């Protein structure tokens, strides 16, 4: 039994190390994933939240995409899915995904990660877009398309 006891110590040791890695990993790297409405509510409740890095998921507002000529600096708006009045202006200094579009005929959802600058623009360090096969078109869209 003494031997088994020693193995229990080994087992608990491994479990403790893995738990420690997960725990510190999560607390050091976690990011809030919010809708624009949730983000607004959070900043209302606690203004310091403005400076926290977050991930925000919203819908690209058609016609808002501006590209600074000769640079890879992009600016566009996203709005809350449920409340189109809540809009965030995003700036992104890199190549946008191929599936990004601000065309009227397409519905593009974007997940942007970054933080607000003092001037109220959301400076994104990454932009992901959601559309295509994984997000299936509705039959109505097909009928119209």
């Amino acid at each position, binding site marked *: 039994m003494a*031997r*088994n006891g*020693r*193995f229990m110590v*080994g*087992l608990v040791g*491994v*479990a403790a*190390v*893995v738990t420690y*890695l*997960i725990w*510190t*990993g*999560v607390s*050091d*790297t*976690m*990011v*809030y*994933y*919010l*809708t624009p409405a*949730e983000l607004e509510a959070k900043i209302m409740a606690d203004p310091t939240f403005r400076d926290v890095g977050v*991930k925000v*998921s919203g819908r690209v507002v058609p016609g808002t995409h501006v590209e600074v000529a*000769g640079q*890879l600096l992009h600016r566009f708006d996203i709005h809350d*899915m449920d409340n189109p009045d809540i809009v965030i202006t995003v700036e992104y200094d890199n*190549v946008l995904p*191929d*599936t990004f*579009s601000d*065309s009227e*005929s*397409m519905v593009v*959802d974007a*997940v942007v990660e970054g933080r607000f600058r003092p001037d109220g623009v959301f400076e994104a360090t990454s932009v992901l877009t*959601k559309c*295509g*096969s*994984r*997000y*299936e*078109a509705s*039959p109505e*869209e*097909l*009928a119209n*398309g």
Partner: protein
Amino acid sequence: MNILGELALWVALPVAAWGMVLGFIGGREQRGDLVLSAERTVYAVFILILLASLGVVDNFVNDRFEYWYTANYSSRNLDIFYKIAGLWAGQRGSLLFWLLLLCLFSVLAVWSNKRKNREFMPYAVGTLMGLQLFFVVVLLFAEVNPFEKLGFTPVDGAGLNPQLQNYWMTFHPPTLYLGFTAFAIPFAFAVAALLSGRLDSRWIHVTRKWILLSWFFLSVGIVLGMRWAYEELGWGGYWFWDPVENASLLPWLTATAFLHSIQIQENRGMLKVWNMSLVILTFVLTIFATFLTRSGLIESVHTFAENTTIAFIFLTFMGSVVAGGAVLILYRLPQLRSETQIESFLSREAAFLFNNLILLGATFAVMWGTLLPLLSEGFFGEQITVGPPFFNRVNIPIGLVLLALMGIGPVIAWRRASRRNLRKNFLVPVMVGGVTGVVLWALGVRYGWALATFTISAFVLTVIVTEFWKGTRARARIEGEGFIPAFYHLISRNRRRWGGYIVHVAIVMIFTAFAAEPWYVEIQQTMEPGETTEVASPLGSTYSLTYEGMSTNVRDPDQNLAWQAVALLRVERDGRSAGTLRTEKRGYIRPEGQQSTEVGILSRASEDLYVILADVDLQGVVVDNDPAAQAATFTFLVKPLVGGIWAGLFVLILGSLIGLWPSAERVRSAATVRSGRDPFPDAAPALGD
């Protein structure tokens, strides 16, 4: 054909249910006639599901857009190749395809066990038919019927996402699915062992090749997915820790643990409860992966008004499998006692056990990170996510310990390693590893994780090479053979062991390639035609890339292209010509408005040069055809050692095939089966005879 297909799906429902009931009752009542009948339903459902799958393919090939699934994943101008692959392009088809593979493997399992292992067959067939029934129910009742009609017929379909129109994407999902479904066989035999009460290592022995086959397909599927991401996603990465990727990694991790832990049960009669739990866990994770891969549950929670029926059905099913498995294990607990105990920390058992604990730790960490958004939403009403930094932090240390164990496990003695055993087997490899580390340090390698990976890799490779060398030399001496025949016979006499070592070499290669990440070079440059950019590789050579210019095409319906802008770059390496690279942006006719970037890759054994057309004035180049608008921004990447991943895949395939190849003994026993003699006289009498 399509009417027949849908009808076949409906007919499969009662047949599968009937097969399940007959299997279990036949096993309980020891009624050979019922069991035979149940086995026939396995063949029948396979044919029915094959018909249903052909129906879906027929819908694609003949452009039947009145069906929701076809309308959403195809278009008239889609290449016939991708139309056939449409069977697994989306969730609905994938589920049917999954079922088809499950049926195929069930047929193979029943057919190959016609005259042996009869004590397991009734329950194994019952379990497999239960699984098939579940998938038929999902297809028919969970709003995912691939034969659902729209109610009107669109002129054309929406088209297939261009990112899925890639060679690798055609083979990656089916390979993973082969891995997922093959694991249903070991699971079914484990359930059969629990139900029949035959709880020795026999069920493991019977399904060993299935376990390896499943693991093989999972590994290949995962690496093919990496290759797809590398070529198609256009940012030069191959692994993103995306929920869908993680979902396929989870069963791979537990299947790897299982592949090792069964060896302890076979050799030492220990870990019986553990193995039963692992086989059930791995199976549930294959279902979980299938569910997560196509449901988009994690990414799209904020827009999650989609199909909740299927989530409910799958979660209930996974919950029932876990609960049912737990009940069965508890019920059989007295018969699952270990025959022996671990004697020492310094033993092969301990190394394998440690490997298992670590792999499960990694499984838990990956699962936790993947499900964190859902869990935090459920418990706190707020979504919290973790990305690659989290997964790397947790999994790099875990991966290094696993890597080291690949050098320790194969040569440490069973039961208790003597000091002599340790010195004999480890002195040289540890020294080689140490010297490698010191030399790399002296050469200026300062990245801690990379240095550790290279050091441990050198240790593991030395252990494996030494084992091959010792085995071959001993055989050559004893049998009086030349070295090459001795090497061949060495491997063929114990394919599982030596095949396993070769797979370990593959894993070392892949890990080494991962470790080179800190040396990746990335340069972004805007260039006019005729301009040259120099990119220095960390391995010493210098690339000169000259932008030759942009050629454009407009509208090519045969290729589904609305437009195309192709940049050509002339490449010189250290002043010598190394060819031309092309990278382009394309717009598609279907899906309308969708565009993609194709990258250019120049591969060598030591590194890849990877070129992305990052940005170009599409209006000026494509629409106005303005020669002054040809300035383009490129991203140039140099990726040392990345080829090790793809080369590692080939080594992995080689090692797995050596392990999977039928041994001479098995071929002989198969012959005796055909001649009618029972090769397993110790087994219970065959029920079906």
